[in-house]
């Protein structure tokens, strides 16, 4: 059976930026309740270079992030490594960057997706906005079915 990692990132102290971390809490509860095997979770403020080591151990990876893009409530997108459009700052890198580094350093190529969940406010608040919470729930229901199908 394939191993799947669900990795939420963002700062839960910055309102809807905490979508990734909150999503992982829901997944953890689901794993515990349903005794789901071979689905693992992690979370952090931002992605970084060492995440290339982490994802090398999995067959598939789903990153979960807050998004301000023009999407309905959530959107699952496959991540493709893209050398030409690397954009990175000091301590945060993109999903494509993590995957590309994983391929180049460890010769591993997990199927990688990013789940964008629509976000609205980024104030110094611990809770998600009601709209973001709704989007999160919808995205979670979708991902449960997606993961179970992927693992078959």
């Amino acid at each position, binding site marked *: 059976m394939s191993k799947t990692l669900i990795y939420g990132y963002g700062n839960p*102290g910055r309102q809807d930026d905490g979508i990734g971390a909150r999503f992982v809490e829901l997944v953890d509860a689901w794993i515990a309740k349903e005794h789901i095997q071979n689905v693992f979770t992690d979370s952090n*403020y*931002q992605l970084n270079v*060492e995440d290339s*080591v982490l994802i090398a151990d999995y067959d598939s990876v789903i990153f979960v992030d807050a998004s301000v893009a023009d999407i309905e409530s959530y959107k699952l997108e496959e991540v493709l490594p893209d050398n030409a459009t690397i954009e990175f*700052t*000091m301590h*945060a890198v993109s999903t494509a960057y993590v995957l590309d580094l994983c391929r180049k*350093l460890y010769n591993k190529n997990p199927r990688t997706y990013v789940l964008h969940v629509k976000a609205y406010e980024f104030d*110094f608040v611990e809770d998600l906005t009601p709209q973001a919470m709704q989007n999160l729930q919808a995205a979670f229901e979708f991902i449960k079915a997606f993961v179970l199908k992927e693992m078959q």
Partner: protein
Amino acid sequence: MSQKVTIEPVTRVEGHGKVTIHLDDNMNVAQTRLHIVEFRGFERFVQGRPYWEAPVLVQRLCGICPVSHHLAAAKALDVIVGAGTGHGLTATGEKMRRLMHYGQMFQSHALHFFHLASPDFLLGYDADPAIRNVIGVAINFPELATQGVLMRKFGQEIIEHTAGKKIHGTGAIPGGINKNLTIEERDIFLKGADPMNIDKMIDWADGALQFFKGYYMKNRDFVDGFAYFPSNHLSLVRKDGALDLYHGVLRAVDANGNKILDDVDYQDYYNYIEEEVKNWSYMKFPYLTHIGKEKGWYRVGPLARLNTADFIPSPKAQKEFEIYKAHTNGKPNNYCLHTHWARLIELLHAGEVLKELLLDPDLQKDDLVVKGKKGKEGVGLVEAPRGTLFHHYRIDDNDAIEMANLIVSTTNNNEPMNQSVNFVAKNMMNGQAVITEPMKNAVEIAIRAYDPCLSCATHALGKMPLDIKLYDANGVEMDHYKS
């Protein structure tokens, strides 16, 4: 006709900055500015919150170096709960915090060198930008890139085992720490399978340092001639003058090594440091009050620390420090790119300190917290990877924070970064008919040497919770944009 060159955003620094360079009719540089949009609402946000929440709350400020903010806040609150300044904690409390702090220093310095600075050194500052990045390093120097990744991972895991968790760590609390380090946790780092153990990390840190020195010997003219300018330097030093990244007294030296501030208790920092506001940047410009705005600005960070310290209290790093100091005949080092050299000496030092701490049985003891007579006000300082970080809090009768003031490392380096940009622009662009990409990258190299952190913590693309106001040359507001 005069022109304006804009470099936006500045890449490979945390957050986004903007540089503007104004050229006159003869294509000479007339004015340069590094504009920073720094979110400063945080100090108001913590007002009214219970003081004991601060070490966790401040991690909302920055997801990049939360450990530095966590510890600076905890040190300020140590004073408020009567645990004293720095050494007032139990041995276990102080040493656990030091382990966390030097773990952060180790991972941050390794990341900066291997994944931000090394592309310019390994591939050339004038190389194609498409490959002049860590992916280019991974392709051409996979062993070095892997070392950088694993050194960062090693430091992050130390943080996780001392702070309790990756996000919103709770390890440091007012008056101490909330956990010790078990033998099993300790052995992860002391006896980890190769290469994930402290001995290998020290070897790799030394290797990185020797690599830089080799590069320097081959490119001495470029390194020494790049953004050299005299300045003051400020940091914490241990009471006896040793390099200490967790605690000490404030010391500043001028460009010739004269002590212009020494043995200052940082609880009184506000008597010695002021911040100037300029209308073209959100980031303030700190300076030493007794010297004044014009000449009182100073550098912080690795270069400054090795200029203020008399020695390094670990053998391998001390040996390298002596070589480094000999280069400037014992005088302060004002070469901008030598910051990388200083940073790598600190990386080696951090590795040595981590090993010393891991071998210390005090980490397994259970006396974690001390309390004393409660006060109303406290200041906490640490030497963060990028330089001196100030946290200052005052509480009211209900234990709520009524005042907070933070001076972050990058703010301390505001004027030096502007000086570096100006130096490089004038030396590389004056009189040139065409401003090339390598010239622009050279400006970025100067900024990156300071490892600036401009983040306001949220990383969602296109969404920064900021009000942006535009002003004309007379300082009159032209536009107000709320993102």
